[in-house]
């Protein structure tokens, strides 16, 4: 018996730790031998890029993925029939060299590029893979949420190995944009069938990088695809590291544990801009931050009241003091890169005196009490406090209610909140956003202000079902004009997507959808 049991206890604990360190942790992936690529370590390839991500990998199956992080990671793994030109939302060929469409817009023929190979010996991409990819979205077993975007596809016909025809049940003006998104990525029929439910964590694509390994909550590693049809990519290895906590992410960047991060803190941005070893890439996003007033709740049924609120808000104050130039002021509903977006239609003047007059005209000279609901994220709570002060100046007593984001969204989707603040992402085409936010059919899930204007409903129905681009431009234009005139929403700004990277990272081009495509990215010089 040992003299001191405490000592032996300590020894046991030390042994357990040693044992665990030796055998504890493993990753999933086809080649489990790879390393996580963290730290400065020896033996790591020269051209490695480590990118901090907001979340961990969920699934890289294009039929299932919905989170921003999964979309960003999949953008370097797959190709669609078409894609966006780097840095823009203009369509260009990808797996399809060219395509044509019938007059009625119901029949699309795509001519595939020859010699495109799937990763890891899964063979050449053929028209049957395209058919399989889109048929699969309708599989009731799979319950694909993004698949709903392509619900207009009626059937797919394989003409020959390199030609495929897609038939739609009704014309869809945004069809190519949908194909350019992650739901349009083409998967290997053989790989999906072989890997079954594990496919999402062991994906096979045709893109510049191949999936190598996933270590849950630590890293997702890609390696260069030597057979990529546009030539071998610029990096040997890409490591995505999930760091949900913003402070930790900045620390990791400053400590040199990651090479590239997304910046959302104005003070950090100012600091990094002064640092000669850091490159900043900024791009206005396909996103609008706004606050809205619910027309179904008094006193916001009165347009004068809504106008008073809009005149009372000091936007410059918010943008300059809170966001310090990290966003682009909104002069319309949609982000300027969205097709048919009208710019310069929303230019509210900060005029508290006029706001007070409007309130008096509305029969509320002494103001009123109401509540603004915001998600518990500082990019909403901070401007909300400024708005509270602004409204106080004209006698409106605004209570701010901060809620956890998911709970907030659940409440919001009942369309019963008097005032709400949020930012919403958009697509390259305005169809979904304008239709769901402002048509009667969007109540309650998306039309949270309860806007129901017969002309607008009709314009939206027409615009989203015609292929006549001139007509669409006219109708969507009218919708945007009219909605701005009705003053249900204050469109604050378009948040910029800002990336900071160490100066040895070359060739990164950001885009309005923050897809973190690594098309021309490489690493040069000393780390």
């Amino acid at each position, binding site marked *: 018996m040992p003299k001191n049991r405490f000592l032996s206890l300590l020894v046991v604990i030390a042994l357990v730790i040693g044992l665990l360190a030796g055998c*504890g942790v493993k990753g999933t992936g086809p080649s489990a031998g790879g390393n996580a690529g963290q730290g400065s370590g020896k033996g790591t390839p020269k051209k490695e890029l480590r990118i901090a991500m907001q979340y961990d990998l969920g699934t890289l199956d294009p039929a299932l993925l919905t989170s921003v992080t999964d979309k960003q990671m999949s953008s370097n793994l797959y190709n669609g029939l078409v894609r966006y030109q780097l840095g823009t939302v203009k369509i260009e060929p990808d797996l399809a060299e060219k395509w044509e469409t019938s007059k009625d817009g119901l029949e699309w023929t795509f001519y595939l590029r020859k010699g495109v190979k799937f990763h890891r010996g899964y063979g050449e991409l053929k028209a049957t893979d395209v058919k399989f990819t889109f048929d699969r979205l309708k599989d009731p077993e799979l319950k694909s949420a993004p698949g709903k975007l392509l619900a207009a596809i009626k059937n797919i016909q394989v003409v020959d190995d390199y030609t495929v025809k897609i038939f739609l049940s009704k014309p869809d003006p945004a069809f190519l944009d949908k194909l350019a998104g992650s739901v349009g990525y083409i998967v290997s029929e053989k790989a999906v069938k072989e890997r079954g439910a594990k496919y999402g964590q062991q994906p096979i694509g045709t893109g510049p990088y191949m999936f190598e390994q996933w270590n849950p909550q630590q890293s997702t590693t890609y390696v260069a695809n030597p057979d990529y049809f546009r030539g071998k990519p610029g990096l040997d290895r890409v490591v995505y590291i999930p760091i949900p906590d913003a402070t930790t992410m900045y620390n990791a960047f400053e400590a040199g544990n990651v090479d590239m991060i997304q910046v959302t803190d104005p003070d950090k941005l100012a600091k990094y801009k002064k640092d000669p070893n850091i490159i900043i890439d900024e791009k206005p996003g396909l996103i609008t931050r706004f606050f809205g007033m619910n027309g179904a709740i008094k006193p916001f049924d009165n347009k004068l009241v809504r106008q008073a609120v809009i005149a009372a808000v000091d936007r410059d104050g918010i943008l300059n003091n809170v966001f310090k130039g990290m966003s682009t002021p909104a002069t319309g509903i949609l982000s300027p890169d969205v097709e048919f977006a009208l710019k310069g239609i929303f230019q509210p003047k900060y005029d508290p005196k006029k706001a007070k007059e409007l309130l008096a005209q509305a029969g509320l000279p002494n103001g009123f009490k109401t509540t603004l609901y915001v998600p518990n994220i500082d990019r909403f709570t901070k401007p909300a406090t400024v708005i509270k002060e602004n409204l106080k100046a004209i006698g409106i007593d605004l209570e701010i209610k901060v809620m956890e984001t998911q709970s907030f969204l659940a409440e919001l989707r009942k369309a019963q909140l008097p005032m709400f603040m949020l930012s919403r992402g958009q697509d390259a085409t305005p169809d979904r956003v304008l239709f769901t936010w402002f048509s009667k059919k969007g109540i309650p899930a998306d039309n949270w202000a309860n806007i129901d204007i017969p002309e607008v409903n009709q314009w939206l129905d027409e615009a989203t079902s015609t292929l006549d681009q001139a007509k669409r431009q006219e109708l969507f234009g009218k919708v945007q004009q009219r909605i701005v005139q009705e003053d249900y929403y204050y469109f604050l700004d378009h948040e910029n997507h800002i990336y900071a990277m160490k100066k040895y990272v070359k060739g990164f081009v950001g885009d309005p959808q923050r897809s973190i495509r690594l098309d021309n990215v490489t690493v040069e010089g000393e780390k």
Partner: protein
Amino acid sequence: MFQFVVRRLLATIPTLLGVMVAVFIALHLIPGDPVVAMLGDMATPEQVVAVRHELGLDRPLPLQFVSFVERYLRGELGNSIRTRRPVAEEISDRFPHTFLLAAAGVFIAVLFGIPLGIVAATRRGSLLDLVSLVLSMTGIAAPVFWVGLLLSMLFAIRLHWLPAIGAGKPGDLFSMFEALVLPAFTLGFSTMALIARMTRSSMLEVLREDYVRTARAKGLSEKIVLYKHALRNAAIPIVTIVGLNIGYLLGGAVLVETVFARPGLGKLLVDAILARDYPVVQGVTFFVATSFVLVNLLTDLIYALLDPQVRLS
């Protein structure tokens, strides 16, 4: 002894059932819909209804609870709503990390806490005692995430000695050790402070006992008096503190895992709550509760080992 263990294990059943009820009710009371969280902006109302039906979320709550308990009795924890992987797999992927972190935290707490307490007790009123007091008070008062950020700023950003994030390269022992140092110190710091305080007061009490005077009178060396006679008797309250704090360390691991972006059960749980991933939240909570109960049982067994006066009956 065997009987004692069996009885204690049986007694855990109502505790765990209570945990299940509490988790179930709490999850279903907070607003937010896993289906909306999962499908996002793009889903139609019909699709939301369909998925909710598939997941059984449209059935009455009592029925959902019964089937939840039934599944657990069969040993099935279900699949994650977000990743569609089995919950058991999600947990077993992360548990080694959390266990390693908590164990290292305890190790550091004991390794530094007990000597600190002994020194403070034997040199009562000295400068060393004062230093130990200040250190312990800081440890008890400072929030875990704050300590973590400070350590990270100094050792990772300024000095570049240790990584600010991650758990090191799998298989590379040195890098795993490197990545463990800061989180383990962060986690162990406050427990170390508690242990130091407890050791000091417990030792002071024991050192006043008659048998210690007797031992000294017999002419035993001070070392033997301290370590063999005094410490052993002072150890029971210390073991209690260590045992109770293992549970606390599992909880504290949530914060430490977040600050150092380390994989682990805590982070899995937080992510699952945000995504309203019910099966994962239930699975992790149940798992942690079970571990907590087992650790408590283990603590009681160690009592008996240390003190023959404690009977396991």
